[in-house]
């Protein structure tokens, strides 16, 4: 059973601020959703191999070179950032 403290933890891990009433609502919603998705336990899948886990995936390689000339997209990319200074994106200090 999913509990309120689980939602608190998941919200923290996911970096999503939510009100108390929303978290309580999610306890209820997730309860019925998890009940439904638990149906998958009924399917016999046998031992799950590493291959079976990843499915139809293959590695894709390309030549190891510079795909773009340095600075060719800097302007557009920096422009999308909410806070910037010159050619840099600005964030709050993480080391004190």
């Amino acid at each position: 059973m999913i509990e309120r403290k689980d939602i608190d933890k998941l919200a923290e891990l996911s970096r999503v601020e939510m009100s108390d009433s929303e978290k309580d609502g999610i306890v209820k919603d997730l309860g019925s959703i998890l009940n439904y998705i638990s149906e998958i336990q009924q399917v016999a899948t046998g031992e799950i191999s590493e291959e079976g886990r990843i499915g139809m995936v293959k590695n894709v390689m390309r030549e190891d070179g510079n795909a773009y000339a340095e600075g060719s997209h800097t302007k557009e990319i920096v422009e999308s950032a909410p806070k910037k200074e010159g050619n840099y994106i600005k964030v709050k200090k993480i080391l004190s």
Partner: protein
Amino acid sequence: MKIDVHTLTIEKAHEGLMKKDFSAVELATAFLEEAKLKNKDTNAYVEIYDDVIAQAKVADEMIAKGEAKMMTGIPVAIKDNMLMKGRLVTSCSKILAGYRGTYDATVIEKMKKDGVVFLGRTNMDEFAMGGSTETSCYGITRNPRDLDRVPGGSSGGSAAAVAMDGALASLGSDTGGSIRQPGSFCGVVGLKPTYGTVSRSGLMAMASSLDIIGPITKTVADAEIVYNGIKGYDPMDSTSIPDDMMAKGQPKEKKSYTIGVPVDFVYMEGVDPDVLANFKSTIEFLKSQGHTIKEIKLPNLKYSLAVYYVLMPAEASTNLARFDGVRFGLLKEGKDLFEDYAKTRGEGFGKEVRRRIILGAYVLSSGYYDAYYNKAVAVRNVISNDFKKAFEEVDLIATPTSPIPAFKIGEKTADPLQMYLADIFTVPANLAGIPGISVPSGTVKKEGKDIPLGIQFFASHFHEKTLFAIGKEVEKQ
């Protein structure tokens, strides 16, 4: 010649442009006017571009120089989750307010080369999470066939734009049915191509192993034209299918097809009786046209939706980690960087997106990872193998597109699980990576209005041609 936006198709418009019955500018003007008029009621478009006529002039120049392709001068609408350089693109989420594309999505690049005219960007459920286009930060879209009903989702704006004659075609994206289900709700054709045949580069990711871009059109022939224009290998998408592999996988052309009906799946509890009656009569019609109908068993298909609601939120919660107030769109500041993230994401994402992020984080968390995520991947493989076996004896598999016709606005917003169940027939194609198409199959009278219904077909990987062939048969009905 007068342009009739209601009866015009891509095929006919192309012919008209080639014969100089009308110019691309005249064609674009006609659709622009209709789009602006109808959009007041439907809100299918969240933005109608102001440079449409300039784009159409470029198309006219291509035509004058004899460089026209099938799609040159065709007015189309694009779902608000595909990047166009310099234009606003937001996935209808507050968290991307003001964001402009830094490059063109591959599908857009291809369409630009072909001289397609982009009318605007269309409404959708926020980050494509929903089946009714009711979670957009731009407000709801209404179904052009009945304004009290939803257009389906998540590509509801794209389907409504075509259904209201506000575009000749549109692009949608389909993760669990988001092209086909709104197609059926609005009475238009929706194609979900084989996974990897259309590049995802420049499509905002929801669940990367399930996402695909595809067309929404008035006719099956038009869906084929748009698909042929956007498909193809793209080195910018690591899951893109090489052209030679696609060529090798092409089906043989046939005069009549064997159509499998997974009876235990289709005739289950909760499917609307009108939907079933319409499905049966469409199948009878196909039989009368010389196709063979075969009852088949796909016992694990009923678990598809449960598998989907593990894998999709797991992948979505991971993909949405990039929206943190640092690089794009909205920033809500707190006392430190952690609070910047949490406040930006808490306010920027809508309720359904927040719910799916939490669900995704849960099924991926240690202690539940094996029971949910790994188990779901294993069941996905079981379902894929079931399909592989089924396609050894049938060319196509038919189901209704949606278990219910378009529902009333607000009817299912309170109960997320009820909303999710509307995807039950469409998600198997995404899990197996096979193509699926929804074709209008008639209407049902509800409160004096004709509400559209759709029939869906699945085919083996790369067998889109078979889907087009059977879709054209349904259109004869």
